[in-house]
């Protein structure tokens, strides 16, 4: 009987160890792609054991339904419903509106540059003057979220 109990205990310990190993592997695979971005919560996490996984990293200004609605309400007039630069004003502007699905261009622009152009307008950022400034219409958080939405549309990051 005693041998059976000892065997049971060993089985339980090995099961717990297996779970710990599996969990740490999931955490790593999640955090890797977004390793360059700051996590939303910077407060130190309680350390339970030495091999604990790092906390999952989250975009500071996540793209929400509100972000998509804002894009449709304002930006889509020129940049198009799907961000392809073919909005209703596109045929009439001196410089074609930017195609937000085009990674070749957008990966050459940093998030800060995109934020600056949305907030202060194209002219202030050395780009097309047709792009008005939105800094009195949208707050900084919304503009940051719009930058992240553009990153979603182009499926790209700043190189």
């Amino acid at each position: 009987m005693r041998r059976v109990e000892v065997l049971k205990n060993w089985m339980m310990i090995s099961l717990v160890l297996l779970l710990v190993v599996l969990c740490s592997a999931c955490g790593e695979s999640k955090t890797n792609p977004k390793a360059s971005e700051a996590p939303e919560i910077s407060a130190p996490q309680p350390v339970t054991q030495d091999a604990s996984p790092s906390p999952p990293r989250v975009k500071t200004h996540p793209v929400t339904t509100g972000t998509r609605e804002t894009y449709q309400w304002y930006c889509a007039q020129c940049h198009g419903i799907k961000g392809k630069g073919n909005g209703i004003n596109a045929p009439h502007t001196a410089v074609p509106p930017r195609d937000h699905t085009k990674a070749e261009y957008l990966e050459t622009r940093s998030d800060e540059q995109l934020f600056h152009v949305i907030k202060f307008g194209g002219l202030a950022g050395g780009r097309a003057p047709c792009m008005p400034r939105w800094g009195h219409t949208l707050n900084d958080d919304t503009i940051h979220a719009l930058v992240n939405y553009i990153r979603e549309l182009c499926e790209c990051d700043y190189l």
Partner: protein
Amino acid sequence: MILNRMPRPMILSSAGVGWQIARLMVTVLWLSFVMPAHATPDVSLLKKNGCAECHRLNPEAPLDSRKGPDLFFAGDKFQADWLTRWLQEPVVIRLSGFITDTGFLKGEPTLATPHPKLDLGKAEAVTGHLMQLRMEGLEDAPSAELNEPLSKGKRFKYKILFEREYGCIACHQSVNLAYQPRGGVSGPSLLSAGDRLKADWVYRWLKNPKKFEKRGRMPLFEFNEEELQALTRYVVWHKQSEGQ
């Protein structure tokens, strides 16, 4: 003699005060009968002509109900002569439809355009009623400066402000140097804006659009006084008589 010529100080007797209070009360009572006509204008004729099916005639109506521009400040915004002409021969001003139209972003408005036509009699009657619709508490506008004729030099200067500095041309139709239409279609066309709109209203709109439009698609700006006057004068320069 001198004493006789001097005005006598007015002494109010208690009976005089009572009489004045009574007069005041009668005046207030009379105004209470007359004033509501101004505070809540009669919109029955406008409703009878179907205006309320698409336009909000008072600011309390739900924002979601509008299918066309708000008209509860039509008297502040429009020029009466233009309204009467336009109601008889309506031309499309919002080339992609109204901002709430489900087809707006595709440039295919679902609402039938152009606007229903009215005969002269009806157009004049509707104009008369629309011009009664005004907002209270609007701030003063420098009318004299805004309505001054624009020199060619200033027009080019203001054109740069309009097109390059603020990018208005991306959404609003204006004209190029050959007076040909040029510009975006999501905002109302500004061709003939000077025939259509009152300069004071354009100034107030640019200064504080939230006063008139709670949820528009136009960006908000914080223009200084010089820019406000320059852009207003440029917008109202667009007239049929200017070769368009």
